[in-house]
């Protein structure tokens, strides 16, 4: 499976994503410069975390105008996999590829820590191998991860099973205590209607190797690889 990691000015997790795809998943991967109008076809595009353009205005608000976003949009329309992690998620929201918006964290501070996530939908290629209800331990690191959307959108997300991850306790309760940033209904990640575009605040690429505190991040990518394999054989 060919991966592309988009590099915006201010992307910080681009090298981390590149590293795990190359070294852990052992898949071909290339960086894609944000100004690129076109690039070789990839099967999965990653919009990594960081502070694109310094996030001085609003997270992702400038990056969405980058030339590369046109290609991201086409990749999504074509049904190719797109995953936005942290700042990448914020950019996907700003670009309208996913519904809703981000607000500053409830406590108004940046938060970096390990959290528990409950997998609430395995209808996406990123989670199809993970049993629904499974609890993953994955770190977050953001200042604006307080997800919000209007009531109709929320109802639609729920009806279409597009809420992919929720913050929860170690036992799987989505209680207010387990919500690190005030996000609506403990939402940590959502996907588009077709399921091929995923946005999530936690960083799976940070927990895919021994010594990194958890290897639960592998689950998403192993799902994606198995989805790609079965698509090929289908």
């Amino acid at each position, binding site marked *: 499976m060919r991966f592309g990691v988009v590099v915006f000015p*201010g992307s910080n*997790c681009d090298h981390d994503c590149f590293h795990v795809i190359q070294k852990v998943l052992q898949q071909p991967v290339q960086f894609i410069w944000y100004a690129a109008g076109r690039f070789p076809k990839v099967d999965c595009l990653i919009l990594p975390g960081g502070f694109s353009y*310094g996030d001085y205005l609003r997270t992702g608000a400038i990056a969405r105008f980058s030339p590369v976003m046109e290609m991201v949009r086409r990749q999504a329309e074509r049904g190719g996999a797109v995953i936005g992690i942290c700042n990448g998620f914020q950019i996907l929201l700003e670009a309208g590829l996913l519904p809703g918006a981000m607000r500053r964290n409830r406590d108004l501070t*940046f938060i*970096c820590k390990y959290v528990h996530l409950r997998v609430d939908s395995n209808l996406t290629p990123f989670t199809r191998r993970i049993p629904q209800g499974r609890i993953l331990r994955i770190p977050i690191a953001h200042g604006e991860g307080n997800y919000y959307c209007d009531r109709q959108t929320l109802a639609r997300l729920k009806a279409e099973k597009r809420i992919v991850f929720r913050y929860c306790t170690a036992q799987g309760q989505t209680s207010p205590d387990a919500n690190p940033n005030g996000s609506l209904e403990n939402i940590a990640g959502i996907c588009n209607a077709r399921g091929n575009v995923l946005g999530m605040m936690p*960083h799976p690429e*940070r927990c895919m190797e021994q010594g*990194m505190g958890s290897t639960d991040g592998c689950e998403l990518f192993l799902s994606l690889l198995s989805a790609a394999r079965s698509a090929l054989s289908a």
Partner: protein
Amino acid sequence: MKRGKLLPVADPKDPEITPKLVKEHGLTPREYSTINKILGRQPTYTELGIFSVMWSEHCSYKNSRPVLRQLPTQGPRVIQGPGENAGVMDIGGGRAVCFKVESHNHPSAIEPYQGAATGVGGILRDIFTMGARPVACLDSLRFGKLNHLRARRHFTGVVAGIAGYGNCIGVPTIGGEVMFDDTYLDNCLVNVMAVGFMRHKHLTLGRAHGVGNRVIYIGATTGRDGIHGATFASEELSEEAEERRSAVQVADPFMEKLLLEATLELIRGGHLVGIQDMGAAGLSCSTSEMAARGHTGIDIELAHVPQRESGMTPYEIMLSESQERMLLIAKPGQEKAVKRILKKWHLHAADIGCVTKDGLVRVRYHGQVVAEMPAGALADTKFPGYPTYHRPARRPAYLDKVKTFPAEFQSREPDLENALLRLLASQNLCSKRYIWQQYDHMVRTNTLLLPGAGAAVLRVKHTKKAVAVAMDGNNRYTYLDPHLGGRIAVAEAARNVAVTGALPIGVTNCLNFGNPMDPEIFWQFKQAVKGMAEACRALNLPVTGGNVSLYNESPAGAVDPTPIVGVVGLLEDHALMVTPWFKTSGDVIVLLGKTHDELGGSSWLYELQGIKAGKPPVLNLKPESALQKVLVQAAGLGLLRSAQDCSDGGLAVAAAECTFLGRTAGQVLMGAELNLGTGLSDTSLLFSESQSRVLASVSPPDFLRLVDLCRSKGLDLIEVGRVGGKFLRVYHHGRPLLEQKTGDLYSAWKNGLAAYV
């Protein structure tokens, strides 16, 4: 052209140089007359400004340099020692670690957010100009007690500033330490250490070589911010300091991120001869230092310098400390490639001059020479007339008053359990999660040990190695005995590295003291450096650079002498890293080192009795060195299940920490039972801060091997108990002293700082 024809012309609009103006520039009449002698004429206003910043203590180390000579700087691993932007040490396999610490105390005291943020930015530039990729920051912070509004303002602002900058630029802040003491109420301390990884072949120095090579300015535009920042750092904080806000620069981490990526691309592409960041003293410092180190000259045209304000004078352009700027010397023929890379990263690149052979820094403004000075006079300590002072030192009178503390305090705290809980919940010993949770401490995915332990550990990707880093410096010890405090600062930081199993290899230091003109302050400084030098020699640790921050005074007086030491260590196999928490029921707990009756300067005395007095714990360098060797060897053999330094709060606090520190890494609480037989009082047994001690646990089959190893190194080891259960129990000769649920210890500790802010 002959030199005589290029005499700089004073602008008629420049102020007249009077003794008053010279004084305002922080120069003494003697220094001014030396400048006249060096130039063979009166300086222009611009030249006066340049000399003023370059001869400030911040840039010249004129008061501290003779003392700093005691510190060892050589060693087989040293690739770059002091005198460059940062130190570089070999870690094998063609790779190196680059590191340095720097202070940003005064700016942070006045404008906490921006002061701390620009402190982070400044030290990161020092790392990547050497050709290293910054991989971690650590901070050593000092504030007044948090019950004061001012301390809370400093504290929350500084932490937010470090977070704002470090998170945005994508360098993890993975460790450090903080202490709260009213000595820092007006003058907080913000010492930032940065660590970078590099390959030897990418080492790049701040030197101007090759006559005719182009001098290129890159990065942010030059504004009026930060003018006289270096001079400002070299005087005491006064009542009017608030008005000096304009001497504090404004941070732009996004700009620096671009600068970082562009610089590394330029260096790795082999396009540069030399590069230097523009930090303190801006363009003045970068031009004169690069020329002085390269034994060349530099000729620049200020009209080509990108400016963010109109009407800036040559004086202002030369002295501006606008952040996120660099000066580089391109290899001949590479100018186009340099411009292409800078354009890619949306950075300004301005060709502002060239390298010359006459040894002069020549500054033009629209063709007119406005300053022309020997580069050496500004930046080479060996240049005739360059200021160096041997200040008088006198033992401070206060030392006699604080030598002892009344013996009755020993028996004042009959409730030992309560004492332990109060210590664990105190500002200085409680969990610092409130701070490090605001820092991205995982980006770049090298963090092997999450914050909260004594050291941070980073893996070196593509190898089995890891690098451990710790910062330490106990102001109470240094206040009570500067010599001993200096020794302990080095030993403790190295010990915190060694408990992870890493071999300590190098030191950087940040020396925070008061006004060196005061003989008592200068005595503290000399004594502390002497102690540090002794410890560095005994532990085989070269100092590869650092920073001196003097004039840490407010109208209320000088801060406690505070030498902060950063130690870097190398772990050959990161799978053998040792963590501080107890892991397995039934493991044997051992205490390496000896406990003495040493409560002087202790946390117990300070936090619970409110007293800063007594004789700090003695530090003998032989047992310390033996201890550290045992730790590294035992870790290499995989003997240690856990190891934790016994320092602030003594054995009781160390033992409590071992029961709950694993929580951060998702581990369960793990109790323990300890029984010691000593001739000490109960209070001393639990809270004495005797040095060179480590509390470790080993699996029963490995116990005897550890005993043998300690014996072969002549190190004291006593078996003190077993891991297991839900309680921490401590007995003295079989008599129960403490019995606490591990959950209660953890609760007392974990909410920590959040309760104070």
